[in-house]
């Protein structure tokens, strides 16, 4: 049954997405490592971690789409799960530094020596082992999402209220992680990493491997999400999004479905965070900032929520735009981003992929486009001023 469910994940266009991601996982590192410098097809060194970063962002947007696009839960705190995964990885990388830090303490990371810690706090135990850190990458965001969701969904906190309390959650965590006595490096966060699994982080081969790992992780997340949304589980999630109480009257425990989607999504976000940190070389409390979490929402919205390809396209496009803007017109980036929020919600509610798909079906069926729009709009009936 499970294999059947997994096979279903490759239906239709999904197999192409997976194939393309695997091709990228091979092609980019290979071109960077084996083509001579100056070759027109060679991916330059600094591009590898940058593209790798985009892929982790794409994973994060995919995770958000699972809860927002399919289940109607707009989380404004997904950055927190990403950051938790990142911190778990950062703690491992910190302990890998060993006595190569500025203070050369074999056990304590530099910031702890600086802050006069006498011994390692208990929650840092075990992070010298990769397998332990890897489990934490999954477990910490998963458990946080589970506990948070357990309370929120059982008491039927929905819609805007849920969005606001998820934002409050990540804001509270932001404040907490800024504190030096939390034991996570305060506002400087964790940085100055040396190597991962024994491989130096600055080496081209390590970067290429991290890039490949990101692409494969994205492909795997895509398969999992695809397996979810193409199953009856996915249909229930959409049913919850469109008519929550109707779903309940059919006998589905809506809270459990939401909890499943929320937790699965948090785990994917956590893994994305863990892959992000070694590629950018730092994790700090800024990742918890509410603004970051809202930015994830716009990636997803630009690409097209409620489709699995949309968030990936959106995350890569928006971030590539951001890299370009901040290089060329740094002072205009916020105008562009702000304008994007407004324009997408007003003029492109289904995002790029949604609009393309809509145009495609309209063309194919030779139908009046108005009819197609009428039918595919998933937004609930207008009920202003609830």
């Amino acid at each position: 049954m499970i294999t059947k469910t997994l096979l279903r994940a490759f239906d239709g266009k999904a197999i192409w997405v997976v194939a393309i991601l695997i091709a990228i996982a091979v092609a980019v590192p290979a071109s960077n490592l084996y083509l001579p410098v100056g070759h027109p097809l060679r991916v330059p060194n600094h591009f590898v971690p940058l593209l790798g970063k985009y892929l982790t962002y794409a994973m994060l947007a995919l995770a958000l789409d699972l809860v927002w696009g399919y289940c109607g839960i707009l989380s404004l705190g997904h950055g927190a799960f990403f950051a938790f995964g990142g911190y778990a990885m950062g703690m491992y990388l910190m302990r890998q530094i060993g006595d190569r830090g500025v203070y050369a303490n074999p056990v304590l990371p530099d910031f702890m020596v600086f802050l006069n810690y006498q011994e390692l706090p208990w929650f840092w135990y075990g992070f010298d082992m990769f397998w332990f850190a890897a489990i934490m990458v999954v477990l910490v965001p998963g458990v946080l999402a589970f506990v948070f969701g357990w309370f929120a969904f059982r008491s039927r906190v929905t819609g805007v209220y849920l969005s606001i309390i998820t934002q409050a959650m990540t804001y509270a965590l932001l404040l907490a992680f800024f504190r030096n006595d939390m034991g996570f490096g305060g506002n400087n966060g964790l940085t100055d990493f040396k190597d991962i699994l024994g491989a130096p982080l600055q080496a081209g081969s390590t970067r290429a491997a991290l890039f490949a790992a990101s692409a494969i992780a994205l492909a795997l997340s895509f398969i999992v999400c695809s397996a979810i949304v193409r199953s009856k589980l996915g249909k229930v999630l959409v049913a919850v999004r469109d008519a929550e109480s109707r779903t309940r009257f059919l006998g589905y425990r809506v809270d459990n479905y939401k909890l499943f989607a929320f937790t699965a999504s948090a785990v994917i976000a956590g893994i994305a965070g863990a892959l992000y940190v070694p590629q950018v070389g730092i994790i700090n409390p800024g990742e918890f900032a509410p603004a970051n979490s809202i930015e994830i929402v716009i990636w997803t919205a630009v690409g097209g929520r409620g489709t699995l390809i949309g968030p990936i396209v959106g995350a890569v496009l928006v971030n590539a735009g951001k890299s370009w803007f901040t290089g060329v017109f740094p002072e205009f980036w916020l105008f562009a981003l702000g304008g994007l929020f407004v324009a997408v919600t007003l003029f492109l509610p289904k995002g790029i992929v949604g609009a393309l798909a809509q145009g495609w079906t309209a063309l194919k069926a030779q139908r009046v486009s108005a009819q197609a729009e009428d039918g595919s709009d998933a937004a609930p009936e207008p009920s202003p001023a609830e």
Partner: protein
Amino acid sequence: MDQNHPPLLYLDGVSVSFDGFKAINNLSLIVQHGELQAIIGPNGAGKTTMMDIITGKTRPDEGEVFFAGDVDLTRLDEAAIAELGIGRKFQKPTVFESHTVWDNLELALKKPRDVFSAWFYHPSKEDVGRLEDILATIRLTERREERAANLSHGQKQWLEIGMLLAQDPKLLLVDEPVAGMTDAETVETAKLLREIAKSRSVVVIEHDMSFIRDLAARVTVLAEGSVLAQGSLDHVSADPRVIESYLGR
């Protein structure tokens, strides 16, 4: 209550109020096994609120609600009550608009409702056959791959009834099933409901008197949150209190 043959649904002394307004006032009602019962009453008589109470959406302030003898419905939530075998059709047709007709029915089909069963669910031959039967019953076979949003109002009503059938409940609560239907559709609906009532209990809320006459059901009149009269349609429509409550407003 007769302990040997408990009624399917038993409401006694149920009251609920919203901000001081008594929507249901000391309501008592019994639905027998295999019974088709119609509930009528002027606007604000508490018909929909009564359904909310039975299906767990609203908790009564006082009173007892029992299903199949000893299951206390006031302690259960909507999902648990639905799993017990109480299906509900809403006043405003609510189907899952972005799903196809087929998916709507598949979601309603009586199957384990937990997350992982849903994830690894694959329809068996039996399931497919059952859904096709229902499609035929509600006359939507032609439109099975259509999005529910594209159906007409009457078709949505029928789809929702089809979903109720797929749920295979012991008790159906049907809120205004023929609102917005053509006369021909109304007649068909009455036939359908009578057919359904052969194997299970059905409670219908309706305003359309000719439809109720077609149903040939026992009628309960609600007014101001409690039962005003019960009996055949001819019996209750001769009752002066009923006439007054309809006209006296």
